[in-house]
């Protein structure tokens, strides 16, 4: 194996030689430099592989032939090998990326670049603290110099500020080193650790000076303005190096030097990390410059790593894994994003919309952003999971909150950025051009992210069980994205059905029910996709991603698998939702609430894991650590998906603005994921556990309030799909309430609702979506009289709203009936009354829906519209048949469901006598109801048809109009603001308190960010002041206090 010292010797040798080699021409010089970088990377790789296989032991490299502390020594262990590998790889790729600048610039730039990478290698490997100082100076100087690669006013300023700041920091470090030597007589880090400096009088301050300087190198908030300026002004290729390589190396230095300090410092490092993480992510909120935003994000990520470093005692064996996961994701993603920003050449975030003109870049950007935030299958996901598990396990819930809150803030601005990229206005922007040498590094890091994610998952016991086949299917669909819709749709449906075929024998009844809803329902929803022409680029991968997540949560046998599926589903559904025309803000609020919920879920699962050795789903049955809080957190996590009151504001927009066939997917199917989760956790809580009574009671009220307020909001919508979306909120409220009852009847009612809501909301969204496709507007008052043009759609909507309103004999009634029986048995009378009123209101808005869209006056421009597409009709009618069957033979489904629920709630069962359901309060039979009402109905209908057989068919304006004629359909159609009178009476219930609340929260955050960031006045001197203040305050807190 090649001696690691040759990393230095080759780099420096070539750097020095460039003065001669440079005479051979630019291209040769660049080639020589790149091959040197490759050689350095090769050395690290070689060592890394050796360590990875476990055969190699940590090696010391002695210079000058003397043992430390006599001379300087380098160390090559697993960590060093890994970190140098990271640095050298990004150095090589960055070198390739920068080729065009290298060609333009003097050959000296090559030298500086090479020396920078070399310096980073040395600060990772060296075990001598003064040597560390020297090479840190080399790194600072070369970075400051490279800032000038792209020389302009801004980069000159940034370079100067950076240089001044780092030299002051280095000065502090030097003072620390001087006195370290003075007190101990050695400069070797291992010796310094051994001497236990903090026990020496005055040693504490030495340690303080050394550590604070190294921490300052990591750019802690708020003493980091200088670094941000460099991120913003330097050329993106350099930004990538700083963010990925330099920060990585500096972090490693901290982890290495930290041992000098001893454990009492760990807490403070975590604290500084926390402040940095939260602070810089908060300020990121106000950013509109892409590179500066990335800078904030980089600093935030380093803060997170510092937190983890401070907890390394608690994390124990898991520390390397966690750090590796987070660091590697950050490393690849940040490098990729910086490089991307160099390709896209968009300064303002809003200008990133141009990236959409080359869709594959959008994919790359998405990969990087999702990796940064910690979505599966990227390493950061597994790392965050492990981190939270361990932190909760050791009782550090506050820290979990800090970590998750900071991540949340980061998600906000990253997804807003992504939103601009996906949906922003891009017509005025020029297409960027792509150089091959710039593409290659981006590609490599993107692919590496996936590969490393896979390996990270395999590395641990928990992760190894995760099934990557659905993801592979997503990858396949991504690869064949150029094919026409027809082919892709067929493949997608076939894939889903095949999956179902393989999976269903292993599922118990509850899971089977949800799997049918998710997969069979999903396949049905996809049928509508045949109606689309062209490629429908990007739709199938994300749809399948969502279904992969959904089936993942069903098949999960461990909590990690569950969470993995949950996050996949979130990501997929986010992409689906944001495909809609005006759905950018809604997509953002969706993903933010989802992430918030997912974090609550994560924390809850972490608490559930405490006291268990495995991660099996059965740990939910027996939570030992703060069980009420744990259950509450998990439930909140699921409630964000079911859009319970307070967490619902994402839903109307997200569902309303989604594409026609996406709305049923995200409403009828996706929302059930939250329900499934609730079912699991409530089963876990157990039927007869009085401990959780308050929790279920609160859940019940939440459900009831969701029901009524959802209905009331639906009443005043003008947008058909938003109306349905609010209706979904209300319906999900019923399900939550039913589950919260925690009795046999309640659950049966809730499950009936699950099935019903799936059936009728699918039909409604699908039909309305198809109608919207035909008429080109969402606004109900712009439609009208469509029954004449779209009888099929009308029938579908009619039947499903009868079911939705709970009118006998259709199946909605079954749900309501079970529901009130359950509520009265439970003694939740007011909740029952509230839900009852709400179904009255539901009837109002449903009437309005069908009336304003299908009845009334046909609008002039809809005269020639055709009925909904056949491809939309197929799933609609399949489910209509299902709905009718379920209505008239509810026992076919409810009886097995009842038996299944009896496992958990053995008492108070619904008994069946043939088709008659009997509860303690009464009995009822779906088929008898159906037959009775159906026969009367038919009888009367036939009579009427016979007696009016000669009726004259009139047209739309043939109405009595006080002897006049209507002027236009628009002025004759009662559709806009129909319930004005109702509004006057109950306006008080429509005050958007929740929305106001969340708006205030976001405004508060943004205002805080806007205020705080004035700290970065741009004045280099004030940055210096920040550094000194930071030092003094930290001193006062740590030593002086």
């Amino acid at each position: 194996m090649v001696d690691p010292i040759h990393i230095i010797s080759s780099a420096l040798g070539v750097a020095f030689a460039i003065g001669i080699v440079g005479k051979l021409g630019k291209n040769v010089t660049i080639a020589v430099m790149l091959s040197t970088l490759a050689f350095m990377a090769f050395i690290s790789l070689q060592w890394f592989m050796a360590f990875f296989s476990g055969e190699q032991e940590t090696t010391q490299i002695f210079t000058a032939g003397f043992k430390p502390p006599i001379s300087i020594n380098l160390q090559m262990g697993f960590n060093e090998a890994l970190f140098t590998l990271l640095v050298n790889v990004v150095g090589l790729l960055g070198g390739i990326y920068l080729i065009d600048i290298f060609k333009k610039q003097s050959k000296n730039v090559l030298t500086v670049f090479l020396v920078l990478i070399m310096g980073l290698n040395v600060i990772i490997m060296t075990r001598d603290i003064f040597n560390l100082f020297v090479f840190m100076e080399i790194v600072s100087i070369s970075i400051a110099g490279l800032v000038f690669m792209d020389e302009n006013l801004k980069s000159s300023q940034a370079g100067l500020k950076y240089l001044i700041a780092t030299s002051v920091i280095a000065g502090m470090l030097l003072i620390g080193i001087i006195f370290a030597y003075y007190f101990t007589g050695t400069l070797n880090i291992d010796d310094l650790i051994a001497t236990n400096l903090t026990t020496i009088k005055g040693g504490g301050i030495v340690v303080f000076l050394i550590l604070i300087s190294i921490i300052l190198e990591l750019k802690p908030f708020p003493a980091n303005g200088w670094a941000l300026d460099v991120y913003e002004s330097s050329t993106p290729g350099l930004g990538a190096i700083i963010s990925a390589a330099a920060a990585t190396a500096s972090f490693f230095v901290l982890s290495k030097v930290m041992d000098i300090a001893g454990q009492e410092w760990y807490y403070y490092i975590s604290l500084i990390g926390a402040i940095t993480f939260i602070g810089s992510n908060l300020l990121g909120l106000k950013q509109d410059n892409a590179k500066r935003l990335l800078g904030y994000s980089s600093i935030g990520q380093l803060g997170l790593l510092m937190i983890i470093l401070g907890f390394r005692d608690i994390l124990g064996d898991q520390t390397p894994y966690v750090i590796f996961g987070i660091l590697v994701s950050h490393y690849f993603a940040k490098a990729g994003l910086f490089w991307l920003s160099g390709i896209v050449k968009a300064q303002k975030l809003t200008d990133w919309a141009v990236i959409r003109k080359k869709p594959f870049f959008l994919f790359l950007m998405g990969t990087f952003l999702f990796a940064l935030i910690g979505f599966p299958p990227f390493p950061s996901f597994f790392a965050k999971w492990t981190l939270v598990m361990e932190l909760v396990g050791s009782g550090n819930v506050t820290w979990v909150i800090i970590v998750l809150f900071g991540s949340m803030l980061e998600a906000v601005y990253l997804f807003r950025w992504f939103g601009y990229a996906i949906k922003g206005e891009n017509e005025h922007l020029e297409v960027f051009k792509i150089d091959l040498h710039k593409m290659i590094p981006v590609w490599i890091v993107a692919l590496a992210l996936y590969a490393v994610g896979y390996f990270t998952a395999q590395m641990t016991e928990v992760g190894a069980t995760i099934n990557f086949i659905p993801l592979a299917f997503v990858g396949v669909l991504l690869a064949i994205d150029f094919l026409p819709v027809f082919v892709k749709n067929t493949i997608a449906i076939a894939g889903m059905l095949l999956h179902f075929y393989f999976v269903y024998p292993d599922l118990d009844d509850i899971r089977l029910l949800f799997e049918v809803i998710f997969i069979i329902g999903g396949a049905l929803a996809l049928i509508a996709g045949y109606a689309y022409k062209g490629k429908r680029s990007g739709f199938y991968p994300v749809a399948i991603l969502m279904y992969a997540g959904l089936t993942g949560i069903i098949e999960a046998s461990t909590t990690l698998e569950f969470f993995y599926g949950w996050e996949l589903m979130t990501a997929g559904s986010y992409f689906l939702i944001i495909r809609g025309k005006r759905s950018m803000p809604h997509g953002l609020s969706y993903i933010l609430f989802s992430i918030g919920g997912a974090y609550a879920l994560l924390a809850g699962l972490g608490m559930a894991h405490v006291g268990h050795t495995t991660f099996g789903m059965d740990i939910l049955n027996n939570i030992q650590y703060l069980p009420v809080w744990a259950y509450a957190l998990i439930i909140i996590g699921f409630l964000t998906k079911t859009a319970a009151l307070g967490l619902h504001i994402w839903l109307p927009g997200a569902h309303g603005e989604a594409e026609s066939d996406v709305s049923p997917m995200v409403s009828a199917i996706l929302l059930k994921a939250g329900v499934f989760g609730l079912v699991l956790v409530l089963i876990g809580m157990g039927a007869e556990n009085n401990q959780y009574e308050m929790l279920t009671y609160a859940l019940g009220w939440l459900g009831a309030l969701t029901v009524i307020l959802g209905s009331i909001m639906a009443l005043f919508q003008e947008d058909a799909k938003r109306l349905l979306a609010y209706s979904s909120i209300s319906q999900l409220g019923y399900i939550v309430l039913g589950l919260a009852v925690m009795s046999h009847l309640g659950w049966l009612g809730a499950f009936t609702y699950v099935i019903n809501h799936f059936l009728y909301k699918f039909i409604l969204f699908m039909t309305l979506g198809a109608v919207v496709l035909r008429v080109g507007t969402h606004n109900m008052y712009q439609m009208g009289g469509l029954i004449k043009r779209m009888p099929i759609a009308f029938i579908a909507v009619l039947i499903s709203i009868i079911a939705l309103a709970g009118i006998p004999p259709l199946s909605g009634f079954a749900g309501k009936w079970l529901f009130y029986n359950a509520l009265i048995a439970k003694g939740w009378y007011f909740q029952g009354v509230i839900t009852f009123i709400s179904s009255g209101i539901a009837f109002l808005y449903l009437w309005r829906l069908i009336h304003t869209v299908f009845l009334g006056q046909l609008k002039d421009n809809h005269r020639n519209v055709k009925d909904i597409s056949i491809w939309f009709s197929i799933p609609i009618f399949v489910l209509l048949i299902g709905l009718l069957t379920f209505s008239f033979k509810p026992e076919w489904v409810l009886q097995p469901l009842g038996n299944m629920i009896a496992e958990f709630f053995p008492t108070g069962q619904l008994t069946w006598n043939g088709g008659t359901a009997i509860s303690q309060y009464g009995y009822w039979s779906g088929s008898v109801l159906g037959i009775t009402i159906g026969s009367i109905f038919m009888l009367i209908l036939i009579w009427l048809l016979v007696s009016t057989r000669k009726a004259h068919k009139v047209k739309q304006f043939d109405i009595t109009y006080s002897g006049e004629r209507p002027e236009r359909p628009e002025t004759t159609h009662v559709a806009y603001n129909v319930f004005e009178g109702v509004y006057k009476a109950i306006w008080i219930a429509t005050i958007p308190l929740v929305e106001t609340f969340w708006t205030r929260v976001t405004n508060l955050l943004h205002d805080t960010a806007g205020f705080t960031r004035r700290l970065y006045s741009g004045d280099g001197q004030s940055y210096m002041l920040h550094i000194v203040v930071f030092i003094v305050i930290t001193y006062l807190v740590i030593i002086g206090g």
Partner: protein
Amino acid sequence: MNIYVKLAYTLLGLLIVINWGMLMGATMRKIGARMAGRHGIPFHQPWINLLKNFSTRTTITHGIMYYLGPVFRLSGGVGLFLFMPMVFTGAVDGPWTNFSFEGDLVLILYFQVFGMLGMALGAGEGGHPYSAMGIARGLAQHAAVELPLTLAIVSIAIQYDTLSIYKIVEAQQGSILNWVLFTNPFAAAAIILAMLGALGHSPFNLVKAPNEILIGPATEYEGTYLGFMMTAGAVIHVMEAVLFMNLVFGGANSWLELIVKSFLIYFWSVFVGMVFPRFKIEQSITWFFKVPFVLGVLAILMYSF
């Protein structure tokens, strides 16, 4: 009981109810006329009107849903009759209990809407703006009425621990003091006030609101359709009264008792209507949110502890 015998009883009962409904309507108008010092319509006027409407020679149609409107309305009325135990005879499977599942309250409350829905949709296809306005008002008022009504009904359900009308009636047998009117006065009061809205007379007659929005939902309906709707109206009025009778006034042991009680219940709403002018929709809704609502809440509080 044999299903055919039961069917026969049911048909007979339906006949009685329809005719009683029409007679009751005529009587109310007669009473109104007499109060105004007029002679008023003859008692047989509703039947003549029905006959005339069925005998129009030309008729129009606006489309399929226009047909279905009256059909829904009438099946809603008849269904309501079928699901309501009419006369209490001491046996669950008695002759006048129809096909009522012992009179399931949830079923009846939801089935009320069936007729309304058909009416709403049929009128909607007529395309007349006044129809839509009338329906919007009607549905809104219906929802508002349901607030005190449901509170009271839930209170009664708690009181007797059942959702079956039959059992509620059974529990009120014996003495007049067993009536809900006396055992659960708050619920009874809430229902009595809610009745005003449910029966749709002035001041809660803004659905039809004659001379304001013509005749509301029925504006476009004529001839046979109107006849169907009048029939359905007669049935539904009686059934509403019977519902309240069963819930609050001890049910009926014979048809005579049923006729007397339903007449009085219906008269109560007409009586109030004679005195008060029409509410606007927001006034109507807020009215139910005041006293009746408080009474309903008290009723539940009274029985939930």
